[in-house]
């Protein structure tokens, strides 16, 4: 028989060898190295495998977005800003950044209430009071809001220098999953927990009912900024600060408000808000998520340029923050933008794993996997006593895992403990099927003709196929993103993949190997 015919005759073995070579390439060849430093695991490793959070360390936060949504709200010709303002006016907080209106048709759309502890009843009452008709109110936010929130979270994480973080939705879309390589959970939580709405207000006196009292007037909203610099240490005088500029279209208004409220007073203003808020000159306040971050006055030259209208030509100034940390926070918030909707952290999970623990998990799971393979090999050798049957069985089962690892490296699926569990499950099911094939083929006397072998192999394969189908059916709910919420998806996906690789490639190849060893031509 020529070499070509031998190969053609054993094409299943050839296919298995080809898959193994391909997998080794994906695993070890530098050409397939993970590109850049993407993903939570940006470390040098011997293989091209990507390790997930559990094996490389990092933080994972999973939480739904806060909010309730009214569908099919009739906007009655108003624009979204108007709807937002009118609905917000009926809320206790009265804060229009808690209300998001969006058009979905020309005349109607959705209204979302995204404040903390927002209830469906709150939104219903506000809409009723504001006189807007709507169809239904449900928990959750719109797809657009979710998408925007994810984008803002991504830019926040990047702005904070946590490169390699990922943000995505999981489940049926209501949950947001954030993974970053930093294992300081508190730091990550603080970063994503705050909505980060920053506004600049003037704190000034007004006459009201013959008494004088201090009020806040919002001067610059988050969307009014044109450019936001990075946090500066600052020298003497100003100290830590963030340089900013205001959009040209808003500059006149900002300038007028500063002058009217007296912040840009003659000769500048001296702010003593933090010591004595009841008897201070007018102040500039930086308000982040509703609380005052810092307060400062205006220097004489800036006040002068506002008073004579020059400032609006080149509308920039600096936000004095008092501490460098706060400067960084304000800068990140302003540059990343505010989260349209906050995260309900209490309704989710937060996980952090140190790099050292990740290393331990990695080592331990390799040991567990090897011991499982050795056990299987031991039992199989013990049962058959014939290395001709048992050895290829162990090698075949092991090659299924190699092919799967190669596949994981190729699609850069991050390996986690649940994927490792999947590999071990694959070894288990794989050997089961090989036992079925071996027993069937060797049943009732020696296999001495190819025809007998073929018919027996085909019969065995019916059972193997049926068993594989039940495993796939049983695992598919867990593999679907809706059900698993992400945690055990890897387990299910790799168990299913393993079963498929087994049925299509490795188990038929084992049949060929067995035939070559058992039939005498």
């Amino acid at each position, binding site marked *: 028989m020529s070499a070509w015919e031998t190969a053609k005759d054993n094409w299943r073995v050839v296919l298995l060898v080809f898959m193994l070579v391909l997998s080794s390439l994906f695993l070890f060849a530098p050409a397939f190295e993970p590109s850049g430093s993407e993903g939570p695991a940006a470390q040098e490793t011997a293989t091209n495998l990507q390790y997930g959070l559990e094996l490389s360390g990092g933080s994972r936060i999973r939480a739904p977005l806060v909010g309730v949504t009214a569908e099919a709200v009739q906007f009655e010709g108003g624009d979204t800003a108007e709807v937002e303002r009118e609905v917000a006016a009926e809320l206790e907080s009265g804060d229009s950044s808690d209300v998001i209106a969006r058009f979905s048709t020309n005349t109607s759309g959705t209204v979302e209430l995204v404040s903390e502890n927002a209830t469906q009843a709150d939104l219903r009452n506000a809409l009723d009071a504001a006189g807007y008709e709507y169809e239904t109110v449900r928990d959750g936010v719109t797809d657009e809001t979710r998408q925007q929130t994810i984008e803002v979270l991504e830019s926040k994480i990047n702005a904070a220098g946590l490169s390699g973080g990922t943000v995505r939705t999981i489940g049926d879309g209501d949950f947001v999953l954030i993974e970053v390589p930093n294992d300081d959970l508190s730091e990550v939580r603080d970063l994503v927990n705050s909505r980060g709405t920053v506004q600049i207000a003037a704190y000034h006196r007004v006459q009201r009912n013959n008494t004088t009292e201090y009020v806040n007037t919002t001067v610059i909203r988050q969307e009014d900024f044109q450019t936001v610099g990075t946090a500066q240490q600052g020298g003497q005088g100003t100290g830590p600060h963030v340089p900013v500029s205001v959009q040209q279209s808003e500059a006149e208004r900002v300038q007028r408000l500063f002058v009217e409220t007296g912040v840009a007073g003659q000769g500048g203003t001296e702010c003593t808000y933090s010591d004595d808020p009841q008897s201070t000159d007018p102040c500039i306040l930086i308000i982040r998520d509703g609380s005052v971050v810092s307060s400062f006055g205006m220097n004489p030259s800036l006040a002068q340029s506002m008073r004579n209208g020059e400032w609006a030509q080149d509308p920039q100034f600096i936000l004095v923050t008092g501490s460098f940390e706060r400067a960084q926070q304000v800068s990140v918030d302003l540059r990343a933008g505010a989260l349209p909707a906050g995260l309900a952290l*209490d*309704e989710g999970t937060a996980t952090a794993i140190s790099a050292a*623990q990740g290393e331990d998990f990695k080592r331990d799971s390799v040991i*567990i996997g090897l*011991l499982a393979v050795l056990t299987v090999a031991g039992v199989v050798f013990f*049962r058959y006593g014939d290395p001709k049957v048992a050895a290829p069985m162990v090698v075949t089962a092991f090659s299924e895992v190699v092919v799967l690892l190669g596949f994981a490296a190729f699609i850069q699926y991050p390996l986690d403990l649940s994927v490792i*569990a999947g590999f071990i499950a694959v070894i288990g099911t794989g050997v*089961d099927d090989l036992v079925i094939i071996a027993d069937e083929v060797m049943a009732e006397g020696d296999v001495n003709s190819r025809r007998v072998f073929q018919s027996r192999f085909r019969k065995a394969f019916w059972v193997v196929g049926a068993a594989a189908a039940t495993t796939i059916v*049983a695992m598919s*709910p867990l593999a679907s993103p809706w059900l698993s919420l992400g945690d055990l998806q890897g387990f299910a996906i790799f168990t299913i993949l393993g079963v498929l690789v087994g049925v299509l490639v490795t188990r038929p190849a084992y049949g060929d190997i067995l035939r070559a060893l058992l039939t005498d031509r």
Partner: protein
Amino acid sequence: MARFEVPEVDYTRYSNRQLAAIPLVVLAVALLVIGGAYATTGAPVDPGLDFTGGTELRVAVDAPSDAQAREDIRVAFTATPDSIQRVGTSDVYIVTFQTEGSETAQNEFTRQLESEAGEAGFDVRSIEGVGAAFGSETQNRALIGVVAAFAGMAALVFALFRTFVPSVAVVVSAFSDIIIPVALMNVLGIELTLGTVAALLMLIGYSVDSDILLNNSVLRRSGDFYESTYRAMRTGVTMTLTSIAAMAVMAVVASFFGIGLLASIGTILVFGLIADLMNTYLLNVSLLRWYKYEGVAR
């Protein structure tokens, strides 16, 4: 070289009633245990942290003895730990706290535990906090998943064999294969986690293999009933024992290393596969024999 052979069971000595009695009694007892748990606690099995919400910390404690380390842990936290478990013989301990009934928000609770661990000088190796609402949501989804998987498996089995009694035999065996481990979890105090749910789903797929093998051998192949049964049994027992061995090793080693996910998958699969040996070769065999000799004749 040493080797084992699967012994041949003389089924002719026992009636179908006798054969089916043992697995059915075991199944009834298992259902009673689960029912009892449900009546007293409101849950068929004690749900773990994944489903109730709570916080799990893995901390390295620098202490001269195990007892001292446990004492240090109890002193360090203001909340009372639900459990303290040492990882192997290392200085790492897994401490869990349930937030059940607590009014402190999960987020704040986790933060507090984290800072208390830091103040006590423990090296925090991992921390996991699960909100109660998230936990119960996960529980619902897990339940739907198990039911969907089981229904899918049952439909597939009926499609494969297209005869009522043999298909029912497989489905009943598979049902018992997942009920018995759940009852054992109650008896042994093993909590329901995502890992155990995965294992139960795995069992649905795994345990029907030997039943399919048996049915195939008896229904689709030529030969005497007892001969076919023995042939299927030789193969089936071998493969189930192989899996039990692999999963037992995984369960033991993973619990030594404190990897709960792998340990619970291993443990539940060992329980389920042992139950499967009984169900396949007592319950399924008796149903098949009745079908073959009496059911078809009618």
